[in-house]
């Protein structure tokens, strides 16, 4: 049944009926499988991938990648401090990383002031946060497997044998 995930990961809007046709299964079985994935947290949510550069009414915000060095805590290691950090709504992603720093935190803000004040006033002053290094993102080319560019038109000829 993993193939259902493969289909939905590419296009979350494919209906269970269509998936059933593609996989030659009964629609109710596909529906049940999807419900189970949702219940088990395998499928967490469905959302649209938006190219913010093209949204005119709302100029795209600023994104920063912040390297955070942390003093781990007894028994819980990095998890508790990570939770304190990722709970801020400004944080869009948070990863534990091997190497010269510990957490990679991705922060979204309206502008440079919003991001810097989050770093200065919320993140850096957390107990256990030893040091932060902030990189502002300049341009997005590809995100989560999606190339952020409009599809080029089909280059095939219309009829061939």
């Amino acid at each position, binding site marked *: 049944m993993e*193939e259902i995930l*493969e*289909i939905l990961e590419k*296009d979350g809007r*494919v209906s269970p009926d*269509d998936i059933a*046709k*593609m*996989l*030659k299964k009964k629609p109710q079985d596909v529906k049940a499988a999807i419900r189970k994935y949702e219940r088990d947290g395998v499928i967490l949510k469905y959302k649209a991938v938006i190219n913010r550069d093209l949204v005119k009414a709302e100029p795209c915000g600023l994104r920063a990648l912040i390297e955070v060095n942390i003093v781990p805590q007894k028994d819980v290691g990095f998890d508790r401090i990570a939770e304190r950090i990722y709970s801020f709504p400004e944080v869009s992603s948070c990863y534990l990383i091997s190497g010269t720093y510990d957490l990679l935190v991705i922060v979204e803000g309206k502008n440079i002031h919003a991001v810097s004040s989050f770093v200065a006033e919320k993140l850096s002053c957390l107990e256990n946060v030893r040091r932060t290094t902030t990189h502002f993102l300049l341009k997005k080319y590809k995100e989560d497997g999606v190339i952020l560019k409009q599809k080029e038109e*089909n*280059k*095939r*000829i*219309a*009829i*061939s*044998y």
Partner: protein
Amino acid sequence: MNNKVSKKVEQMQPSGIRAFFDLVLGMKEVISLGVGEPDFVTPWVIREAGIYSLEQGFTGYTSNKGLYKLRLGLHRYLKSKYNLHYSPDDEMLITVGVSEGVDLVLRAIINPGDKIIVPQPSYVSYGPVTELAGGIPVYTDTTKDGFKLTPEKLEKAIDKKTKGIILNYPVNPTGVSYRKKELEALGKIILKHGLICICDEVYGDLTYDFEHTAFPTLAGLKKNTVYLNGFSKSFAMTGWRVGFACGPKEIIAGMTKIHQYTIMCVPITAQMAAAEALVSGKKSIEEMKREYSRRREFVVEELNLMGLLCNKPQGAFYVFPSIKKTGLSSLEFSQKLLKEEKVAVVPGTAFGQCAEGFIRISYASSMESLKEALLRIERFMGKL
């Protein structure tokens, strides 16, 4: 000078549906299900290898037989995939697509008046190229046998002048393929009469319901077989034009002679990219194949629901539904569908007169386009 063009070429039948194709090309916003190539672009790793080879300055001729690196890669690929052994030195030739392979082998084996059996419906070039080589194509109609050549029909088609047979599977245009047992039955007859089997297995990697059997792997048949394959369909590399032929030394040597005088060698960039495809393209093949298989299930189900009856094809990316119940001819149906709903399909008759009453639908298109096209076809059927 009155007769500028040779009699042979003048007498060649031009494709009867040329006008229909021109009509399609002149129209805008058509959803085309008439395409005989993948809708994927060549996987990036392969394209990158082509670009890199240019940067490195690989811009010259290669050996007539093709890059040794590529032949060696093919030798390993065939060995691991089918346990099939062809020497990269003298049993293999890199060709400009399978199309050149078909032309070369026919010219290499045919004496004037030799007959070549061509099961129909079939790919468009087999008959005309046989004629150009001085042979006579003998068409056998497979429409009443589920589009498969049966041993009985094969036996019946053979006479003293029969030199060989062109066996393509999975079949373009029907998507039908043969199981090992069926091939063995045909193989027995081919051996009995000492025929040469030219097998075009370019869609072999796109076989969905069972393992593809390469014809030369059948007991005793390697010496009677010229195995043709290419990178176009399985690696989504149609425009690179790389194919290969494997077979008995003397036939390959004959083909290489013609190849060296006419083509010299396949463009080096394409050969470099193809060599890379064998090394790192396997994952992409598997992904594309799963995607095609899902579309196939979807399209077959939808077509049957709307009354365009078709069997589920086992390979390639085509379905070949019957349109007989509409009372229209293949060409009329295709023209009307194009004019009224802007969906292009290929009339079955493009692939042989016996395929009147069928159309070829290619599902090498995105699910979105397929869904929209099927909706339009359904609406069209409702109006008939």
